[in-house]
């Protein structure tokens, strides 16, 4: 279902809006760039006149009138205009007014991954996942952003603005996708060691596909050859697989890990090869992440565990 969705590469394009909450940001960025270039040109022209201009021009530039016009009136008008226009342009981005029918999701930044808690209209948690957010297209999504340890910043450039995640606070951000696709995100506030490897993925589905995806979120991993190994090797101390005895909370929920597009918080494609590599030595891939390298598995054990993880769709 999600395999055929268009995907943009890395890093995510920041000037290619794909939703109503990122378009004003892009427009503003271009306007500031163009306006800044014009002003810079004016300044350079003035500099040229001061250095090389004819005495007549120099005289004009040095007159009192020029100071009033260029030094006072021009910046006042331009900056005030920009401020008013910018505020109008971006007023729709503010999450102080929640649009009708918005989907609610709480996302908690951790070092160095993301908890994703889907919520219903009353704020009750309906589903837990990690590092990947599935949304329907054409419907605003209210993100309630928190942080568990240090300041992170949630940023999916094509879908919305950038919002810090601050411990002890809940910040709100609206995002929306116009078309189905896979949108990459990235932690945008330095949060320690592998900050650069703290990616995020938003998958936007058509409403029907989204309903299908939501209905498929049924824990599937109650049995399997690798489950015993998962429980006995210590994985369950940090990871939860709903429907099994594994209920650790320190690491990402793995109930549907096999269906995720990425591993390691948006950084690796998810296939049996990368899964095995991540389990055996995640430290080589994402140095200093909090999952230790599991060097003790032999090939058969690693294979069984990998197969089990991949089967958790």
């Amino acid at each position, binding site marked *: 279902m999600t395999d055929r969705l268009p995907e943009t590469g890395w890093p995510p394009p920041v000037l290619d809006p794909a939703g109503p909450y990122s378009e004003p940001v892009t427009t503003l960025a271009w306007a500031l760039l163009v306006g800044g270039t014009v002003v810079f040109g004016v300044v350079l022209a003035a500099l040229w006149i001061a250095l090389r201009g004819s005495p007549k021009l120099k005289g004009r530039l040095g007159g009192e009138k020029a100071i009033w016009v260029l030094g006072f009136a021009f910046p006042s008008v331009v900056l005030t205009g920009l401020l008013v226009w910018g505020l109008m342009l971006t007023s729709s981005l503010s999450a102080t007014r929640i649009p009708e029918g918005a989907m609610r999701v709480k996302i908690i930044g951790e070092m160095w991954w993301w908890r994703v808690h889907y919520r219903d209209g009353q704020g009750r948690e309906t589903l837990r996942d990690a590092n990947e957010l599935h949304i329907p297209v054409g419907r605003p999504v209210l993100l309630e952003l928190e942080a568990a340890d240090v300041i992170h910043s949630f940023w999916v450039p094509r879908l919305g603005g950038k919002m810090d995640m601050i411990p002890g606070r809940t910040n709100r951000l609206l995002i929306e996708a116009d078309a189905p696709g896979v949108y990459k995100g990235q932690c945008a506030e330095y949060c320690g060691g592998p900050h650069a490897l703290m990616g995020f993925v938003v998958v936007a589905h058509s409403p029907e596909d989204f309903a299908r995806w939501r209905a498929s979120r049924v824990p599937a991993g109650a049995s399997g050859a690798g489950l015993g190994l998962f429980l006995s090797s210590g994985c369950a101390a940090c990871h939860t697989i709903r429907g099994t005895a594994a209920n650790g909370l320190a690491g990402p929920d793995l109930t549907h890990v096999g269906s995720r597009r990425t*591993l390691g918080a948006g*950084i*690796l*494609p998810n*296939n*049996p*090869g*990368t*899964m*095995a*590599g*991540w389990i*055996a*030595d995640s430290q*080589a*891939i*994402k140095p200093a992440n909090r999952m230790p390298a599991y060097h003790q598995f*032999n*090939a*058969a054990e*690693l*294979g069984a565990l*990998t*197969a089990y993880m991949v089967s958790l769709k």
Partner: protein
Amino acid sequence: MSPSKARGMGCQGPRLVPSQRFRDHPHLAERVVVAAPFAPGGKLRLKIGGRLAGERRIPRPHAFARHAVAFGARRERAPRVALGPKAPCRHIVWRLGGGQERAGKGRGKRGIIGRDLRPVGGAELFCDGAHRFMFAASARIIVKLAVEIAGIESREPRGKAPVAFAFDAVAGETGGRGARVAAAHRNRLAGRAERIRIARRRVASRQGDQEEKGCGAHLAGTNFGAGWFPFRSARREAETKVMAKGAWIASMLVMLAACHSPAIEPDAADAGTIARGEAAAERLGCGACHAMPGIDWPKGRVGPPLDSFGTRAMVAGRLPNEAPLLAQYVGDAPALVPGSAMPAIPMTEAEARDIAAWLQSLRD
């Protein structure tokens, strides 16, 4: 293939030896002597480079060229030879600073082949036993290339002469299996055996003269070497030129190919395939377990690093490093090596083939 850096199969790279060493060396068939005629001729150089670059990377052949020239100039160094940039071969420029007569004239001319054929160098390649087979295998590919290049270059009926010459040259060097194949090809393709024999006789006598003078870095019983390149007469100039070109190209290419691993594929992958393979390897996250050249991150430590994969003889310690087998292994390792910790990875057959081609192109 710098002289100081021994390659996997024991080829030490070309190095300079006094000419009398040629006679003492026990394995005649393992020597290659190269003459490097010089003069304007950048066109041909570009053709060779282009063809080679499309085929595979050639690590630092200019190191060889430098020594060849140095030998010819009877100097320890050849300061007038500017080294080209690193491989691929497309970028390599040999600047030969003139032959013995022109030594001391300062900056050299660009180009390698031309009318004014003159020996400027020779070098010897030492090989171990494994290299001999490799040599024979790669020589076939090389000669095919030489055929094409010479044909294009000569644009005349005698264009076939250098073909035969090249085959002969290869046959003389490789011995055994390769020689028989090459000889058969020669007879089929050349069609001008009579003329070639004539040329060879002349060459032989000329070679003797040169040997007396101690100048020829050449071999009795082999058909190419420095000695007979200066052979030149008004009547046969064009013919000699073409033949010498073919021989020179063949010998040069054989030299280059000889320092590759035995895993050279008969139809080496083109650059597009290799690039696609690298992209696929990155996309599929092979780096989660393997450190790979050209891919900065991730550099996994679960499996072996894949540097110089194209020079390895074995895959996973079990399988010969051959493209079809490697492609199969990349996609589904446990099917070929039961018990392997490398799982079957979902990918298309085309992706597996591309990745295998890319892996085999890793030769530095």
